[in-house]
């Protein structure tokens, strides 16, 4: 399957943090043809294992891209049948008004987030963002029927299928970080073209959006020698500073800072240079908001690198991605893994 096709399918499957059962099953099935072994754990992390053709000489590498997505959750249902909700993961309340959603109750229900018409608002009121606690979802059902189908704690996802913008840009929801899962899938294919040592665990992690919780658990379980976290970063837009955003068309972004292993990161950059893959650098002075933060300090410590793709409008329903970046990043990652043969430990020595 081609990457865009896979991305389009993945973002259609609900997988709000903590409730990733469906997306986890789908990712498992997607990984299967390209891995020797695939399993899931109790927290819906998916582990795909690929052993190198050169046995015993290379490191145990763990890739991590998260499969969960941000979303909403039913908090209460009032006597008229309006649903109040809370957010799971970081949702900008300003994008919520008038969104179309699915409520995952006993049945999958369609609903809209209501917005008070402008002519009913006072001047002062109109200046302020509407807070989440004042919003409700209208599922168009009478309260009795609604309460039969929906209960407190049910998940709500956004309706926003993948569309093509000007080639090669695509747009949709939850590209953060389903595109990372697609990148792992493409990396598997790339690896099949190469000879590499050691073994590679492709881990699609759960609960990243609520505190990299899936990565904490899965890294402990895999006990890797090297970690490669894969996530999105901010693409350039006119309303954000150049310091905080990245050109959408150059290629993958390699992060540097205390959270990443300096020598391993150098090696990653050298592999990119040697193979003519353009990349950008993102400087992260503190902890990154990605799985890398947890992978690095698992057990006795895991030297970790972070590979990112620029994404515009992160955590909205119209995230925009350059699909070519995924291919470039996958090729870089596969070449990086294949570059570590005998004596790979040397590149970690302080």
């Amino acid at each position: 399957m081609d990457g865009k096709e896979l991305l389009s399918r993945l973002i259609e499957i609900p997988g709000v943090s903590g409730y990733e059962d469906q997306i986890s099953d789908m990712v498992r099935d997607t990984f299967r043809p390209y891995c020797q072994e695939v399993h899931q754990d109790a927290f819906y992390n998916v582990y795909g294992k690929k052993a190198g053709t050169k046995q015993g000489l290379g490191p145990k590498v763990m890739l991590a891209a998260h499969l969960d997505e941000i979303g909403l959750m039913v908090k209460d249902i009032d006597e008229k049948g309006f649903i109040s909700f809370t957010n799971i993961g970081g949702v900008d309340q300003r994008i919520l008004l008038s969104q179309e959603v699915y409520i995952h109750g006993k049945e999958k229900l369609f609903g809209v987030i209501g917005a008070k018409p402008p002519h009913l608002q006072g001047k002062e009121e109109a200046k302020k963002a509407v807070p989440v606690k004042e919003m409700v979802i209208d599922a168009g059902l009478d309260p009795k029927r609604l309460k039969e189908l929906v209960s407190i704690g049910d998940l709500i996802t956004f309706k926003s299928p993948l569309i093509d913008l000007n080639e090669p840009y695509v747009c949709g929801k939850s590209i953060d970080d389903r595109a990372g899962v697609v990148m792992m899938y493409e990396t598997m294919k790339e690896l099949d073209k190469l000879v590499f040592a050691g073994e590679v665990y492709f881990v699609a992690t759960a609960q990243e959006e609520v505190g990299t919780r899936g990565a904490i658990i899965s890294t402990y379980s895999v006990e890797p020698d090297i970690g490669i976290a894969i996530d999105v970063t901010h693409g350039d837009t006119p309303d954000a500073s150049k310091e905080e955003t990245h050109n959408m068309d150059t290629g993958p972004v390699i992060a540097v800072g205390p959270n990443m292993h300096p020598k391993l990161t150098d090696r990653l950059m050298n592999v990119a240079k040697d193979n003519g893959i353009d990349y950008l650098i993102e400087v992260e002075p503190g902890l990154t908001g990605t799985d890398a933060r947890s992978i690095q300090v698992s057990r006795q410590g895991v030297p970790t690198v972070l590979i990112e793709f620029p994404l515009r409008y992160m955590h909205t329903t119209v995230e925009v991605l350059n699909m070519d970046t995924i291919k470039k990043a996958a090729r870089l990652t596969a070449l990086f893994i294949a570059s570590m043969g005998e004596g790979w430990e040397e590149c970690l020595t302080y």
Partner: protein
Amino acid sequence: MSDLLKRLVSAKGASGNEDEVRQLIIEEITPLTHQVTVDRMGNVIGYKRGSVPGKKVMLCAHMDEVGFIITRIEENGMLKFGTIGSIDARILPSKRIRIGNEGIPGVFGIKAIHLQEPAERETAVKAKQLYIDIGAKTREEAERKVKPGDYAVFDSEMVYFGEGKVKSRALDDRAGCAALIEALKADCPFDLYACFTVQEEVGIRGAKVAAYNIKPDMALIIEGTTCSDVPGIEPQNFSTRMGMGPAISIADLSSYSNKKMVAYLIERAEKASIPYQIKESLTGGNDAGEIQRSRGGVMTSVVSIPCRYIHSPSSVMDLEDFNNTIRLVQEFLKGCEAL
């Protein structure tokens, strides 16, 4: 001994880039220990065999310091930066720094007072509006010397002044590293792990994996801690007082010290007539937080050297406090069989 301190505070070591201070510490502790290893995070662990089997003792001081990282080079050759660890941006204007492993000199510029509006002078500067000037006229010129991702630290020499006082950068926690190294000269009945951790200032990262590796039974953390016994601060907010001896923590935001260890430290201090103080605040956190919660739990306590103006290029410490901290840690080691 103060030569050791001088060597330690002269070495660069912003969190995530501790190479220079790490090499120095390895050299310093090699003669004092049986084995020196560096783990995957870059922590240095010196192992000293004990004569009594059973328990493992961990001494811990962090070798990283607060600093900066270059995030972007502007067209005009000026550098934008991020801060590593917590630094009050108001102290930055008109300070010198050293960038990268080469130690390229740079300064935080600020437009001259003549050019400022009166209201501007009243406003605190933010790190985002500041920039580093290395004297490069263009981006190309700057790129020949520095690149995004290069780390930087304050440039400030150690100076003896006043009555037994010392001023330097990075006293938090090179003073602790120096005290730990000196304390290693004392005998410990148990197996001793002298641990110099990385990345404390960015979230107690190194200590977490070091403790997991070492599996200690007890750990003593040696810190440089805040000391606010200065004008304008009321006594209840001093936290520690300069010249009153090492500060023993009952608790801070990251850990609650083991009561037996605290009682034992006090007992040893009193027996050896070492002045000490109890830290009068609950603020801050340090390596003890992660060590205490490692695996099934570890007994921890913290001894701190009071440092005024912490996280700035001009931290100030009293040499008597420093010496007494060494004595206290040595006393702790000698008798720790009692624990």
